[in-house]
């Protein structure tokens, strides 16, 4: 049957049809939906793991135990999972194991635009890169064959435009993968120096065999056309094909690590001008130059951002489209915290305290923008906590009374826990605030170990954040409701003064959750003086028109945070 599928959905379909039995992932845009879709197939065990390292180890263990397995993550998640990946490459697999990694060129929803091909090269793991939903399914299935044939984990590289675009896919039946017996094999499965030395030799031989596969298997194919030769993979191949059509010939790469050499030489020999189109880094170009194949690449294209057919047409043919423009400047429309978002209350509370705010990854990163303007730094998952400890250590004990870390519940579980251990163990004084909204919000609302529900929505144990903090040595642990701005501010002010580390949990479900309390919209009363103080909370539901505040009743959920900001008491319930 032909179905219109999201790239991620097609990957999930490929896993299903390949007989995959175990999937463990941590959500991350643009990879999240793979695991959400796979969780709908009853024959596949799926779970959200606390982080990508755990997910990868679960997938490794499952493959060793004889089940085809998968773990999915975004590009930066692969950094977290890198430790197991690099050694899983030495050990190889029993049943097939695939790591799905989605890059985000253009940073639609990421903190950097790293190129995950580097990890494939460095860990010596083969990497496939599909160019549409049909290939997403096809390559996901092929990845298991390669994994088992060559005894290696395989990476499936996606990108935002592949993961999040829909195109037709022909679906098939699930074929149960043969159950592989587990046989103890210390030489292969226990990596310590003596064994790893032998396995490294194996890995190098495997890479040579995989390069042969890249040369001859047909996964990298030549499409004959004009005298311009384009080498491209994935979404960039689509752009090039759209831009140049049959003016060019193409070497479409389906396997981006290891890269072929002879095939490229053969392709190069048949064209007058050889151009490598690759978003992000110059990996294929460098490979060509290393093997003495003359080509153009980053001399024509940027290292930054996404490509498109226009960019390629301009660079290669020097052609541009005509278009109209709006005759004047107009404002940008950045994403914002939702109306009624509990994070808004916490950040508005912090505003009154004039503190250094060590930020983290999640919806609350949006509070860095005006008018909340509330973050001083944001590095990586969990970086707020340990980063604050470093900042305070550099600047002395008094600084600890004027600084906080803010981290969401899911991010805290992901990698904030080790940070609070570091603070307590090393006698730090820092104040850490967990923004506990009972969900992984930014990636589209996934359950997590702190909210008491599994990926399927079934009740399970929830991490007791208060007990956890006490157990690692935080003796001062407080819980506050961020909708109650006044109390929240008071609690944080008190905790900052203490000569010990403190954990404050600002607890209130995400405003978009079914469990969130939605009250009647608030209204502006007669006594509004138009002072605009209420706008400082940065709620999209409130604005000022004709010198008076107005609340959009379709958006407001009556959280009351703006009422706290109004000095004359002009915001309240409709009587």
């Amino acid at each position, binding site marked *: 049957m*032909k179905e*219109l599928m*999201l790239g991620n959905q097609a990957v999930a379909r490929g896993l299903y049809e390949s007989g995959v039995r175990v999937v463990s992932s941590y959500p991350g*845009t*643009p990879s*999240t*939906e793979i695991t959400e879709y796979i969780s709908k197939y009853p024959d596949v065990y799926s779970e959200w793991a606390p982080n990508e390292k755990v997910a990868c180890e679960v997938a490794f263990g499952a493959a060793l135990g004889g089940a085809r397995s998968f773990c999915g993550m975004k590009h930066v998640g692969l950094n977290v999972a890198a430790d197991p990946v690099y050694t899983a490459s030495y050990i190889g697999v029993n049943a097939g194991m695939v790591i799905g990694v989605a890059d985000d060129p253009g940073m*639609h*929803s990421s903190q950097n635009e790293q190129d995950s091909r580097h990890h494939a090269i460095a860990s010596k793991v083969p990497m496939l890169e599909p160019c*549409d939903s049909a290939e997403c399914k096809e390559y996901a299935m092929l990845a298991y064959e390669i994994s088992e044939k060559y005894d290696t984990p395989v990476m499936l590289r996606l990108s935002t*435009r*592949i993961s*999040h*675009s*829909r*195109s*037709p896919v022909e679906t098939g039946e699930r074929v149960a993968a043969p159950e592989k017996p587990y046989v103890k094999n210390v030489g292969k499965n226990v990596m310590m120096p003596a064994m790893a030395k032998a396995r490294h030799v194996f890995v190098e031989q495997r890479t040579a065999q995989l390069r042969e596969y890249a040369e001859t298997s047909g996964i990298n194919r030549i499409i004959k056309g004009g005298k311009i030769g384009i080498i491209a993979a994935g*979404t960039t191949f*689509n*752009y090039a*094909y*759209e*831009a140049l059509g049959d003016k060019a010939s193409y070497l479409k790469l389906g396997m981006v690590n290891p890269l072929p050499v002879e095939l490229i030489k053969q392709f190069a020999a048949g064209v007058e001008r050889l151009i490598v189109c690759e978003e992000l880094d110059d990996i294929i170009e460098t490979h060509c130059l290393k093997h003495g194949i003359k080509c153009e690449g980053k001399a024509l294209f940027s290292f930054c951002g*996404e490509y*498109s*057919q*226009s960019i390629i047409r301009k660079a290669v043919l020097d052609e*541009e*489209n*005509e*278009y*109209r*423009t*709006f*005759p*004047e400047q*107009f*404002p*940008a*429309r*950045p*994403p*914002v*915290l*939702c109306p009624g978002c509990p994070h808004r209350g916490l950040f508005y509370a912090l505003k009154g305290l004039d503190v250094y705010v060590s930020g983290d990854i999640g*919806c609350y990163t*949006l509070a860095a923008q*005006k*008018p909340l303007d509330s973050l001083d730094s944001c590095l990586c998952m969990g970086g707020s906590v340990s980063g604050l400890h470093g900042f305070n250590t550099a600047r002395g004990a008094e600084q600890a009374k004027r600084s906080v870390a803010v981290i969401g519940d899911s991010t805290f579980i992901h990698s904030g826990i080790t940070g609070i251990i570091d603070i307590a163990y090393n006698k730090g004084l820092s104040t850490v605030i967990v923004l506990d909204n009972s969900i992984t919000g*930014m*990636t*589209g609302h996934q359950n997590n170990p702190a909210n008491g529900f599994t990926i399927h929505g079934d009740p399970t144990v929830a991490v007791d954040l208060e007990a956890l903090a006490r157990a690692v040595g935080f003796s001062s642990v407080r819980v506050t409701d961020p909708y109650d701005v006044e109390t929240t501010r008071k609690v944080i002010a008190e905790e900052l003064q203490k000569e010990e580390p403190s954990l404050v949990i600002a607890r209130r479900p995400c405003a978009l959750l079914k469990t969130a309390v939605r009250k009647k919209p608030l209204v502006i009363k007669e006594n509004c003086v138009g002072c*605009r103080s209420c*706008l400082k909370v*940065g709620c*999209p539901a*409130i*604005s*000022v028109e004709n010198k008076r505040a107005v609340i959009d009743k*379709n958006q407001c959920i009556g959280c009351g945070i703006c009422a706290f900001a109004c000095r004359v008491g002009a915001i309240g319930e409709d009587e």
Partner: protein
Amino acid sequence: MTYNILIAGVGGQGTLLASKLMGVVFMNKGYDLKVSEVHGMSQRGGSVVTYVRFGDKVASTVIEKGEADMVLSFELLESARWLPYLKKDGVLISNTQKINPMPVIAGQAQYPEDIAEKLRATGVRLHTVDALSLAEKAGSAKSVNVVLLGVAAKYLGMEREAWENAIRSTVPPKTVEINLAAFNAGYTL
């Protein structure tokens, strides 16, 4: 030939449903197609755009400046923002609804005045629709997206049943009637 539709709006307005329904109709008609969506951070009240491309063979997932045959805009300021993406002879269908972006709310910028007039002055083929009123009349302010889809469907020339069937097979059963009413409000305009 490929036909390019750019759907622009504000996160939360339901642009994804409109593009999904288009996708279903074009696929049922036997076209090759690509529908490119936005997930994640920009969905939170930011400017969002979806690309729908259909034809014999569609390669790229994105639509670039000067390439859209149609821009279907859910909000007036977004019409100004995405105007350059329209082909010179393309059609711009614009909701007349205004939603203040944060820089305007925060007082750092002004919402431009008379956007529709200024758009028209560029010579663009412009079709303005008060989709919010039509949606409210049809029974739900939330169905602005399907009202606008109705207006777009009229330009795309495929028969009404194809769209109605797509709505029936795609939206939750409880909202079928409201969505059909909203679609017709746009289609019969």
